[in-house]
């Protein structure tokens, strides 16, 4: 691990200022992804600003009938909150399908959204990777791509966003709230938060340098049946090959988002309108224009089958 200096921030604007003012400075909260990457020298921050004392650790009702989740609420606490379990079951289920008990105890809401891809070529510093080293090329293209993206990818990067929680947040139309070094706040719909790689795969999100996540807001509950179906290589503690988040209403309409397939949680509103016609109609539209490799083309029929499994479930 490269050497760095460390400070513990006392207030949000001071934290944002500390990161904005210094090249190579980064926020740290749970640290479960950042420290892993620092040990491999994939991330090499010169300065860490610890945000654990900033008080963003509460879940509160909003005036609109939704919930405001503090950026520092742990994955365990968010999944266990009785309001989330009752009204936003898909979010609890998505979180509980990810990582391990130990990691969920430390990982935060903000950190989960900001976690980096698990593409094996991003992790292997001997390999070319445009995301790790812009301009170096992409060894995943033409390489071992079984776990990688099938849609929304580019000719510079075919990595996926690896998380589960964000897929549920995308389904629920959550809004990410931030503050910057000038104290200005910004509300970013989750649909716009993660980027498609295009020709800048090193940039995962639309956040600006020094912009600090403060909370994630959920709109009013949707009702309906909540599902998170995750398909992976072992029964627990593995990343998704394909995951399906869904809220299905009694009349057969609803919402669907997919994980493990794209640079961001993949939701196509025009596709979910086809839910009453069944899983195949939805995935045909949602994955229109997909560019799978030989290794990961299986993800397309797998997505249809995972959604069909969800639609076959009754309360």
């Amino acid at each position, binding site marked *: *691990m*490269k*050497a*760095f*200096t*460390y400070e*513990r921030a006392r207030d949000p604007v001071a934290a944002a200022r500390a990161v904005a003012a210094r090249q190579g400075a980064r926020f*740290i909260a749970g*640290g*479960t992804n950042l*420290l*892993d990457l620092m*040990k*491999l*020298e994939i991330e*090499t921050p010169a300065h*860490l600003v*610890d945000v*654990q004392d900033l008080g963003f650790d509460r879940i509160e009702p909003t005036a609109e009938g939704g919930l405001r989740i503090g950026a520092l609420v742990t994955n*365990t606490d968010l*999944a*266990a909150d*009785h309001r989330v*379990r*009752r009204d936003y*079951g898909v979010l*609890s*289920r998505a979180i*509980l*399908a990810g*990582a*391990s*008990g*130990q*990691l969920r*105890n*430390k990982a935060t809401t903000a950190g989960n959204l900001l976690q980096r891809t698990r593409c*094996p070529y991003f*992790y*292997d*510093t*001997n*390999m070319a990777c445009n995301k790790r080293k812009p301009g170096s090329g992409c060894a995943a293209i033409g390489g071992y791509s079984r776990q990688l993206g099938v849609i929304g990818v580019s000719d510079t990067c075919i990595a996926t966003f690896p998380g589960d929680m964000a897929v549920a947040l995308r389904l629920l139309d959550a809004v990410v709230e931030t503050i910057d070094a000038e104290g200005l706040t910004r509300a970013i719909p989750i649909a716009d938060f993660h980027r498609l790689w295009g020709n800048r795969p090193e940039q995962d999100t639309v956040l600006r340098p020094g912009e600090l996540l403060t909370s994630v807001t959920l709109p009013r509950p949707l009702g309906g049946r909540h599902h998170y179906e995750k398909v992976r290589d072992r*029964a*627990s*503690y593995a990343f998704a090959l394909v995951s399906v988040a869904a809220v299905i209403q009694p009349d057969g309409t609803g919402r669907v988002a997919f994980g493990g397939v794209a640079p961001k949680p993949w939701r196509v509103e025009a596709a979910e309108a086809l839910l009453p016609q069944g899983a195949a109609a939805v995935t045909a539209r949602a994955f229109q224009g997909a560019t799978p490799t030989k290794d990961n083309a299986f993800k397309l029929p797998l997505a249809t089958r995972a959604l069909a499994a969800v639609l076959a479930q009754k309360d």
Partner: protein
Amino acid sequence: MSDLPRLEISRRGVLAGTAMLSASPAIPARAAPVQNEPAPLMPVRFKVNGKDRQLSLDPRTTLLDALREHLHLTGTKKGCDHGQCGACTVIVEGRRINSCLSLAVMHEGDAVTTIEGLGTPQKLHPMQAAFVKHDGYQCGYCTPGQICSAVAVLGEIERGVPSHVQADLTASPRATNLELRERMSGNICRCGAYSNIADAMKDVIGSEVAG
């Protein structure tokens, strides 16, 4: 004679080396460490197994290395050092975490419990006794992490923390075999003692209910 440093081989060194080799295949070969100027040492104070401890550490020091290399509490093990195996599991402020993925300086004021704080050879924690009784290990390298995790899992079930295998999210979780296996999935046992570990946990739950 020779400018080469004297090569000292210790059992611990060999164990640490082989543990790195046996880490998950998901971890690729790492780049050679880059030499750069270390940051000044930082003071950190926390409570370990009920005892106040004060250390002066390079900010890079993980909680795991602080426990093992600085406080010489070598019960907690370094397996993969990347949060994939669970051998380093300790209980911080009542919650189990991977001590390898946490910086020691971030734990100012925290209360840390390691395997040494749960019980002693003379006075075993009920979970330690149950692991012995049910043969919940072979080589024993993952065992301190398994036991810390198992103790914390029982607390999580008691607090009503839900899990992936729970059919009804709004119900209180029950300590079934399936639940215990899912909740322990962050602790890998290369010897495959999983069935006996689940039996040991079930035994402790049973005796707590009975007693």
